[in-house]
């Protein structure tokens, strides 16, 4: 099995992200692998353990995206490719998916490519479906379990987590899979893995390496701001008994006319 996992580097979820002078900043908080993508790496490694083959982690981004890639290597991926080009700097999801599709085609004979459900910075959540559509592969998005995978027969069965419940879907390889948290807790990098990752040579592919010429991004972000401050006056309710406090709260809620 030839497995790919696509990751992105983002500010840590605990970071206090704010806009200062029109620029997004997160202070001293570290850049980390997108938390959703850790589940994708875990899933890729589990499938490799079950069916053999190798796992390559790829990321589109500048030099700083190396840390996300190294985290995936430290978790156990065999090799990494960083896809970096000034032309991709303000890429929207369509361009990112074109770049990833071109990289997957260049690698050749890929059976499965895993993604996290969305990146926690832009919250777009379209890249997996768009990469699949570009490649003409089936897209299994929001997957909570891989219930069947037969590399010899070239078939896969997954469970998808949707608003109304779980959908079981069959399809053929090669395929794109985006995963949700239910798929299983990601492993911690091992000491050996961290050492291996720190020494890894990470090749960089440019637009020319992919024989691509991407258009200007269709989507631009002319303005980014801090959300309006909530003017909250917190009223702490008290009373002689839970019953009394509860009744006070119910009256307040009814006055708010939100029911």
């Amino acid at each position, binding site marked *: 099995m030839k497995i790919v996992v696509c990751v992105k580097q983002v*500010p840590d*979820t605990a970071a*206090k*992200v*704010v806009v200062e002078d029109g620029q*997004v900043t997160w202070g001293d908080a570290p850049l980390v692998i997108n938390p*959703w993508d850790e589940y994708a790496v875990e899933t890729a490694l589990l499938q490799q353990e079950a069916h053999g083959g190798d796992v390559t982690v790829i990321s589109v981004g500048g030099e700083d995206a190396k840390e996300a890639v190294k985290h995936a290597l430290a978790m156990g991926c065999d090799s990494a490719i960083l896809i970096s080009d000034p032309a991709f700097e303000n890429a*929207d*999801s*369509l361009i990112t998916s074109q770049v990833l599709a071109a990289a997957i085609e260049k690698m050749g004979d890929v059976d499965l490519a895993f993604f996290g459900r969305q990146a*926690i*910075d832009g*919250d777009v*959540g*379209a890249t997996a*479906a*768009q990469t699949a*559509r*570009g490649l003409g*592969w089936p897209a*299994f*998005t929001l997957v909570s379990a891989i219930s069947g995978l037969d590399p010899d027969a070239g078939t896969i069965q997954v469970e998808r*987590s*949707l*608003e*109304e419940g*779980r*959908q*079981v*879907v*069959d399809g053929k390889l090669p395929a794109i899979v985006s995963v949700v*948290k*239910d798929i299983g807790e990601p492993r911690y990098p091992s000491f050996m893995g961290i050492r291996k990752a720190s020494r890894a040579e990470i090749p960089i592919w440019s637009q020319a390496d992919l024989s691509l010429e991407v258009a*200007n991004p*269709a*989507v*631009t*972000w*002319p*303005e*980014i701001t*801090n*959300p309006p401050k*909530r003017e*909250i*006056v*917190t009223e*702490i*309710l008290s009373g002689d008994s*839970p*019953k009394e*406090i*509860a*009744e006070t*709260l*119910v009256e307040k*809620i009814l006055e*708010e006319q*939100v*029911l």
Partner: protein
Amino acid sequence: MMTNKIWVYIDQFKGEAIPASWETISAAQYLTEQYGGGVTAVVAGSQVQEIAKQAIQYGAEEVFYSEDSTFDEFRAEPYASLLSGLAKEHGPEVILFPTTSRGRELAAMVAVDLKTGLLPDVTALEVQDGNVVATRPVYAGKLLSKAVCSTRPQLITLRVRAFPTPDLDDSKTGNLTEVPAVMSEDDILTKVAGYTESSRGVSLNDAAVIVSGGRGVSNNPALNPPDGMDESQVEIWRAQEGFKLIGELAEALGAAVGASRAAVDAGYIPYDHQVGQTGKVVSPDLYIACGISGAIQHQAGMRTSKVIVAINKDPEAPIFRMARYGIVGDLYDVVPALTEAFRNRLSS
């Protein structure tokens, strides 16, 4: 046949329209004030003529509908090919979708087919110089971004509950046009083998009221667990007892049940319920947080709720700083009292 510039996609599940689909029509009507013309709706399924008629009643002037067995269970491929084909033929300026998992995936694929941009999970719209300027929360709502798409059509998914539901007028009439499916079953790369509906009642995504539990739900030493449980089983058992109380309050309010990441990670409740940066981002009218401390990641998922109520033993819990009403107390005492008080008041 009309060729309106503003289109909406009506999402349906098992032959019933998802209510958020109608919200796209009110947003579309706002855009027609700038772009002119009326609203065209598109819907597909195995039997969707009734939904097509409803779309007219909610304000669409024209509906393209497609009925085919390939649309029986949602798969993005045949739906995307249908919608992309119609858009290529008629050239709309804008297509609006509800931000359901189907709507988001469909819009993503149509963007590839039409080589255009996608603006997902949008909470506000305006029009400047012929372009839609969309407001969308990023970094899980920690920031707000304006986004513009320079290509056509502009594909926009609207956050559920961000736009009003238009009034239903059953005297309205419009054009219903049936269109054929584009893909045959043999060309579709995926097959749906089965479906299990979740038993969790009201869905978090479109809930007007949410009652959420955190790590604190297991914190009731007074409860006597059954014999023979080890420590971690006791913790889970206590948590489930706690979530029963939360479930009862939710039932009394017709609310959905949410949870903090801490509660999900501890195994108290399935991930489907998680509210926060790595869970669901929700925006109900009323959010009642029980035993939730209010970590920044949780705040990111519920900060736009209209009225927030916090119930926590710890008066220093950060959740109180974002709550309109706070109760410092044990949720095991407060939540059942609240359930009873709401039942009494709402039934009278």
